[in-house]
């Protein structure tokens, strides 16, 4: 009988094992960044939620933020269009620029910023209005269409890009809240892109959707990435692996690793990244 080998081993683990504040392994910087974020810190009162994070987000890339609950990925995402402004105790420091313009410059118009940097949330949140009015809302308040026919074009184009046009073209006057969850989420994406943003932020856009609706949204992300920069926060590792070019791993407010997505999911550089994506701690 052949000898029986035991399968117990001690292999070399990924080289990096500790978190050093302000140090991110992998490739956090890009040649032609859309966003240039340096030494960013976010405080909720006394508590430091984001700790000295520096990152570039490249033009037309899809970057995924992953990490355990409470790691700061959503907080960091919300810095990118100043969504944190509405939280009174929240304070953001460091340098955050969009096309070399300071996002947090007090003179910077937040409404204009949010038109350039749109956002899609975890739960579909259509306005209690018609499908048409949901999409037309942004272009109207930003004065993007002078005539009804221009507005019609924007609505149709946005719905087409969101892959929703064929499903809703005969009932544009129907109320949006009567749609299915997946349709509502795609409507929110159509609403976000109706004002021709440059960047779309997505905060767990598929966590309330079924697999079919998820697949449609992911398909949409791939198409949108040709013309937009997309930042997506997701709890689904497989989703990050499927849709993104680069993946950023957050841990306790630190940005631990940023790498090509293909590298992160086959051989991550930091042990914490590996532990998280392989389901070794929660």
């Amino acid at each position, binding site marked *: 009988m052949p000898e029986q*080998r*035991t399968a*117990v*081993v*001690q*292999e070399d683990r990924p080289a990096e094992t500790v978190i050093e504040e302000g140090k991110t392994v992998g490739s956090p910087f890009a040649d032609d960044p859309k966003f240039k974020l340096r030494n960013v810190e976010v405080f909720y009162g006394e508590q430091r939620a984001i700790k000295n994070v520096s990152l570039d987000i490249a033009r037309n890339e899809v970057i995924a933020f992953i990490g355990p609950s409470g790691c700061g990925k959503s907080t960091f995402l919300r810095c990118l269009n100043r969504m944190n402004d509405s939280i009174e105790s929240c304070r953001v420091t460091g340098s955050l620029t969009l096309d070399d313009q300071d996002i947090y410059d007090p003179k910077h118009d937040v409404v204009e910023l949010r038109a350039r940097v749109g956002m899609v949330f975890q739960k579909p949140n259509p306005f209690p209005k018609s499908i048409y009015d949901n999409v037309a809302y942004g272009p109207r308040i930003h004065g993007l269409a002078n005539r009804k026919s221009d507005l019609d074009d924007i609505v149709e184009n946005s719905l087409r890009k969101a892959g929703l046009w064929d499903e809703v073209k005969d009932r544009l006057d129907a109320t949006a809240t009567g749609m299915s969850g997946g349709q509502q989420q795609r409507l929110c994406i159509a609403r976000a892109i109706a004002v021709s943003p440059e960047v779309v932020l997505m905060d767990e856009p598929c966590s309330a959707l079924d697999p079919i609706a998820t697949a449609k949204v992911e398909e949409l992300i791939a198409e949108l990435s040709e013309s937009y920069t997309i930042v997506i926060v997701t709890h689904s590792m497989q989703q990050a692996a499927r849709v993104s070019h680069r993946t950023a791993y957050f841990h306790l407010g630190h940005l631990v690793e940023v790498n090509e997505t293909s590298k992160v999911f*086959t051989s991550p550089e930091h042990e914490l990244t*590996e532990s998280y994506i392989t*389901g070794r701690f929660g």
Partner: protein
Amino acid sequence: MPNSKDDVYGDHISHKFNDELMELKTEFLKMGGVVESQVEQAIQALMDSDGQLAEQVRARDKDVDQMERGLDEEATLIIARRQPTARDLRLVVSVIKMVADLERVGDEAKKIAKLALKLAEEGQAPRGYVEVRHIGNHVLGMLHDALDAFARLDSEQALRIMKEDKWVDEEYQAAARTLLTFMMEDTRNISRCMSVMWVLRALERVGDHACNIAENVIFMVKGEDVRHTPMEEAEKVVGR
């Protein structure tokens, strides 16, 4: 089965996942053990002109095939159920590839057993058996070490195996030249010498498969594919 907690694949939140990966490793090593003894016994049967042992080796190849199917199924199910990533993914993908190598080694053993039967029936003083024993022992050692390197995730040992392949190729060439001389000396030797040549060829292939396994071990441990790269490149990866 060893305690899964001590293993690098055994510390997931899901215990079931730990068990599945451990099972995959253990079954792979079991198959490796069987294949190893197949090669060993095939060579033995040849040396001793032991027809019965050769028949046994041929019969046991079915078990090897069965193990290949079982391991492939288990690996496929793990991918479907767990969508493994990083080192877990590298383990599962490598096992799928290494199982194919082991199955081929099993086939080579069967081939040697068949030739052993043929040569035993002809029953003459064998030529080239020294070479068979020499190369046979060496590739058996390589296979053994490759499986050990897998069990211990030892990339340095895997690298040593890769380096030995060159030695096997050279010995095989030298042995082939020797057999060629025998054939030229007396044409009545040709049929027997050709049989021995096929045995040597099978052994040389076993060495190749051991190398493939070693390359996969380096991929599992280091996350870098060292196939079809110069040896210096592989050395750099392992030294990292």
